[in-house]
């Protein structure tokens, strides 16, 4: 008769010990380095950092590394709260930029590691454009004087070419910007859409920015990204970028339907051999290398000294870390030649490796192009960096360019608004 009530009590009785067991807690420990990052185990960084963990444990007998693989979104959403509690790790990978590392540094949650950087000589390994994203001022704006993090890899965007499709249609791999336009014309004439594009996410805005960059210089980039001077969204570079983009849409270089395509589908479409060209970042490189069956090549965007790119994510040491010295030792291992070369040979872009030491042909090409770019100080960061929420503004603006629902001039106005609003807030 009373079974339901009894059953409920029985279940509760079963659950009670489990509940009590939930209260246990992991605290800090002097013989443990708590490390968090969110790179996949098969990525270049994942492989190199795994090796670094092994080396760290060999060189620090008695100390274990407690590594936890995190999701990108979890770190993005909860980093501020975690770092403000006693659950903070000793060392973690974090996004560079004003809205992420800059913000946490402004709130005093990240350790200022300037002294450590000069003492261990990391500043000599990093080129000036990489250092920009490591150093923040008291407003949390990058390019300051306080070292908040250190990257051990870099990234940049380039053109990916499907050589089989080029050969099949009798088109030469382009060397100059005019070659590129001529090649795309030939593909269009043959009924092939030349560019794989994703207007729903970052790829379209990166192309727009890349086109603008081909008429810009480093001063223009500094003004835009670090608020060092006047920014005019109707200047030569931006106007050229927006108009060329609209022109490319008109000529059919990129599909009208690409406004609704996300980055993943863009990459998959290129890798399955449907498009001859993709303009995107080095983060695709390893995946293209391991999955693509056709003959392919990459090159820097033709006719532009500047390209999108920056340091990779940075190592940061939370202010609440109890083992800062161990954390610095770990960073040091990832900056050393051996680990940098492993990163390079796994398809990543090391910040301080000798290209001659890279044995894998494809990886070597990737790193040589990167060196060329760095040597001419050509890393121009990303268009969504200057203002919080700017990513969505750019997505909507480029979608309008693809759909043809706004003129290049109107689109540039749309970009100028939120930028200037943010500028007023930063007080630049």
């Amino acid at each position, binding site marked *: 008769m*009373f*079974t339901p009530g009894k059953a409920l009590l029985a279940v509760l009785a079963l659950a009670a010990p489990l509940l009590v067991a939930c209260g246990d*807690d*992991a605290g800090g420990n002097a013989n443990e380095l708590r490390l968090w990052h969110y790179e996949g185990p098969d990525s270049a960084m994942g492989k190199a950092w795994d090796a670094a963990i092994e080396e760290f444990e060999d060189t620090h007998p008695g100390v274990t590394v407690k590594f*936890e693989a995190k999701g990108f979104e*979890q770190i993005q959403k*909860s980093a501020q*709260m975690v770092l403000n509690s006693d659950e903070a790790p000793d060392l973690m990978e974090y996004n560079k930029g004003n809205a992420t590392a800059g913000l946490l540094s402004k709130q005093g949650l990240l350790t200022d590691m300037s002294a450590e950087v000069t003492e261990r000589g990391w500043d000599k390994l990093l080129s000036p454009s990489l250092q920009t994203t490591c150093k923040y001022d008291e407003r949390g704006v990058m390019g300051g004087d306080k070292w908040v993090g250190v990257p051990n890899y870099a990234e940049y965007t380039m053109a990916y070419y499907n050589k089989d499709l080029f050969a099949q249609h009798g088109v030469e791999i382009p060397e100059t910007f005019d070659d590129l336009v001529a090649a795309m014309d030939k593909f269009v004439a043959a009924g092939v859409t030349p560019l794989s594009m994703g207007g729903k996410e970052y790829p379209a805005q990166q192309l727009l920015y890349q086109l603008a960059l081909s008429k810009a210089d480093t001063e223009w980039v500094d003004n835009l990204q670090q608020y060092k001077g006047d920014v005019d969204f109707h200047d030569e570079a931006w106007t050229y970028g927006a108009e060329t983009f609209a022109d490319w849409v008109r000529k059919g270089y990129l599909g009208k339907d690409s406004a609704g395509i996300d980055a993943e589908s863009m990459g*998959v479409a290129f890798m399955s051999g449907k498009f001859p060209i993709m303009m995107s970042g080095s983060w695709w490189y390893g*995946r293209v290398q391991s999955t693509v069956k056709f003959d392919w090549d990459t090159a820097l965007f033709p006719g532009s000294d500047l390209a999108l790119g920056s340091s990779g994510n940075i190592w940061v040491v939370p202010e609440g870390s109890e083992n800062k010295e161990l954390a610095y030792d770990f960073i040091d291992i990832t900056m050393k030649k051996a680990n940098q070369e492993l990163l390079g040979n796994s398809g990543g872009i090391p910040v301080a490796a000798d290209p001659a030491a890279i044995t894998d042909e494809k990886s070597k090409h990737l790193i040589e192009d990167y060196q060329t770019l760095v040597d001419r100080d050509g890393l121009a960061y990303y268009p969504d960096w200057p203002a919080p929420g700017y990513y969505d503004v750019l997505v909507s603006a480029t979608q309008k360019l693809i759909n043809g629902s706004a003129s290049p001039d109107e689109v540039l106005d749309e970009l100028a608004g939120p930028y200037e609003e943010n500028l007023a807030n930063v007080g630049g």
Partner: protein
Amino acid sequence: MTRRLVVGVLAILAVLTLFPFLLVLLNAFKSPGDYTTGGPLALPDALYFQGIVDFWVRVDFGQKLVNSTVIAGSVAVLAVLVSVLTAYALGIGRVKGRLWIVAVFLLANLMPQEALVYPLYFLTKEVDLYDTRLAVIIIFTAIQAAFGTYLLSSVLSTFPREIVEAARIDGANRWQVLWRVVVPISWPTLSVLLVFFFIWTWNEFFLPMIMLVSNDNQTVPVALGVLQGQRLMDATAQSASALLGIIPAVVFFLIFQRTLTRGIAVGAVK
């Protein structure tokens, strides 16, 4: 004729509902190369189990299953218990101003979780429960019980007064009326609530992600988030993980489907 039409429409709807699940099933057993060449809709060239195995090992999925089961199970039981007690007072006890009390309870349910995050974060830190499963259990017991109270109190307000009065005349006190009369008769409703609470809590993502910092404490949906990279996602690995994530909830539902019908049958005989 109309019968066939209805069956046809239902079949189409069933396929539409099952389509995402089928897609997950299809891609979970594909190798990444296969996915790139064939796209998401093609049948796999060969069955590929490595995606599932890799994911299981990478996130220590067994531990996540235990965490999710403990959290969702405790929340389901505790929230039903709390709901019964509050709804007894509101629905049968006819407390003064019960409409307002129910409205306040409902408010807790309507609040977006994003608005709750900061207060909850500071509270859990204050009582040293941040990054514990217990914190998540307490939070979701409160949230689910709010809905349970709302639902049960309106169910119990239509509870036949004669039965309660007959029990009181037989000498039962309030406590006995609750446990020996009200709970057994409303058992079917309670078990439906139990199942819902379990599945809802199982699928929660946002608050567990914020509250459970250590990987050892994380739940299944949070573990699935590990695969979503900054710029890249691995569609096959995600399908494999989604499949692993769906299966426990489906299994739970299938098991309790039977007890549900039994519960309803018992109620009917009475």
